[in-house]
């Protein structure tokens, strides 16, 4: 078996606050092959964004990677010094953030922000970089790219800005893109266009993608694999169709049931009772047990990994249909 592009092993990213240790990511493992799309799903506070930032080496103090390995092309990113990490960021591992209105610097022109991303890595001259910026804008379907290059971010629409962000991510032909809720701030129609573009571009260039979202409908549309995160852990992980059609973990089932659907029109919307638990010094055992209808005394102990290719962590899994 060849080594996958990215393998995360038992990643622990903790925040050492005055009140105690917040275990935002607590033992997360997954692997990603070239050209594949992984949907990382969870509620706010489940640790999905922190997982993404850990891979990018952008966890700010008081947080830091407290354990585990992030093997990217055989190198352990968790142990890489910042100087080496900087060379990887934007070049081999690119990123797309949630809100394009916040991620592009409001006082710098689009061309400045695109060109600097190339110059920082390729050692290319400004003219070469400008050419690549133009090509990237064309690739993501932006009309009149020459004009857009001279614009400031506020002169573009939200969808256009996110396309610019995607173009920036693609410019250095990365092996991996970490996309943190990139369509959450956009209209549904724009979201559809962006999803389509990203999927197409990843297939064309063989770029692997980690798509972080709380929206199951989005991952259903593009992901090859899905990892469901809850309270800093992956509770269910497998091929997208498997996880969506035959969820084994009660949390995944609950998430799927709470997606509004036309088929259940008129019926009250299902919801998962309770709130996500605090990750400040969490107790051992399954952290979902306080909200879970199937919980028993056994749940106070950590559930062992089970299920093989369609993995889940639960003492009382749903029947495999």
């Amino acid at each position, binding site marked *: 078996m060849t080594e996958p592009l990215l393998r995360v092993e038992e990643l622990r990213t903790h925040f050492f606050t005055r009140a105690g240790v917040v275990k935002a990511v607590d033992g997360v493992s997954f692997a990603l092959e070239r050209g594949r799309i992984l949907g990382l799903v969870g509620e706010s506070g489940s640790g999905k964004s922190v997982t993404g930032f850990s891979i990018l080496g*952008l966890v700010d103090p008081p947080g830091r990677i407290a354990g585990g390995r992030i093997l990217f092309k055989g190198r352990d990113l968790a142990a890489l010094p910042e100087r080496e990490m900087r060379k990887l960021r*934007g070049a081999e591992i690119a990123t797309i953030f949630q809100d394009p209105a*916040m991620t592009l*610097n*409001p*006082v*710098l022109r689009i061309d400045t922000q695109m060109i600097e991303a190339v110059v920082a890595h390729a050692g290319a001259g400004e003219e070469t970089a400008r050419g690549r910026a133009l090509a990237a804008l064309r690739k993501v379907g932006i009309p009149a790219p020459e004009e857009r290059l001279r614009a400031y971010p506020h002169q573009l629409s939200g969808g256009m800005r996110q396309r610019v962000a995607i173009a920036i991510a693609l410019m250095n032909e990365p092996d991996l893109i970490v996309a943190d809720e990139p369509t959450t701030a956009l209209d549904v129609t724009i979201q559809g266009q962006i999803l389509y573009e990203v999927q197409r571009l990843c297939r064309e260039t063989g770029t692997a993608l980690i798509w972080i979202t709380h929206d199951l409908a989005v991952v259903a549309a593009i992901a090859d694999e899905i990892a469901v995160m809850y309270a800093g852990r992956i509770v269910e992980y497998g091929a997208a169709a498997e996880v969506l059609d035959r969820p084994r973990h009660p949390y995944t089932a609950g998430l799927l049931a709470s997606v509004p659907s036309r088929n259940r029109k008129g019926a009250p919307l299902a919801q998962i009772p309770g709130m996500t638990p605090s990750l400040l010094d969490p107790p051992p055992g399954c952290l979902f047990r306080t909200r879970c209808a199937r919980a028993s005394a056994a749940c106070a102990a950590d559930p062992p990994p089970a299920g093989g290719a369609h993995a889940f962590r639960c003492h009382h899994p749903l029947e495999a249909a």
Partner: protein
Amino acid sequence: MTVFVIRRLMQSILVLFAMSAIVFFGVYVVGDPVEILVSHEADEAERARVAAALGLDRPVWVQYFAFLENALGGDLGKSFVFGIPAIQLILQRMPATFELVIVSFVIAVGLGIPLGMYAGYRPNSAGAKTIMAGSILGFSLPTFWVGLMLIMIFAVEMQILPAGGRGPVGSFLGMQSSLFSWTGLGHLFLPALNLALFKLALVIRLARAGMRETLLLDYVKYARAKGLAMRRVVFVHVLKNIMIPIVTVLGLELGSQIAFSVVTETVFAWPGMGKLIIESIDKLDRPVIVAYLLVIVVIFVLINLVVDVLYSVLDPRVRLAAKA
């Protein structure tokens, strides 16, 4: 942009009118300059003669319209005390003040922005804490006291810099200024440092606050995610954003510094405009006071104009609205 500038200038003419009236009548109410100008032994006839010579025997509104009429022709009146045109008196003093203010701004900006940015970038370092403690002193120590201390240390004890007065002027491209002579610069240094201290503290605090705020923003994280060196993130992405509040405050400071650096100019016997206005108020030299304040209004208007234009350069989201 052109419309904006023209509109601004029209507005400033209104301000000039209002200012001239307020100051003219204000000084009239404060006291009678004749009392100060003639000696106590002078008799009633002598007083009347002086009042008539200065035009002070007429009703105040007649005096004001006479002044307006002359002012529209470019004549702001003659100083009661020196007998030369008030505007000439002011212009003579202007270069001294300008060079003082310019050097103090160079010190405040040149030191304040890097120090403040460092304090914001490494807020927990010993260096940052020292800088912030120093900035509190810059705020709270009274200017006159710091001025005296500077003279004590550098002029009296160490004897490496002159205690006061303006040094010889040098000439460069036809401009006469002590900026262009070494001895002149030596004379300039202490008063400029004294004048700069408060602004330096202000700039440090603004730069630090801006730095800390901006570093947390998404676009900084995104810039790092693009793999940019921290140097570029800080000096391009952050610096341009934190300059906006700094320019605002410095714009305001610049005007008041040119007009009213009275304390520093007095402590260092600097022959600038601030000293002129204090002496003129002392002698109720109305033409000088009125002309001075009108000049100050013009300076403020120009500075605000420059600041507004600078905003639109720094922040493309700001558009110069013609209605402003």
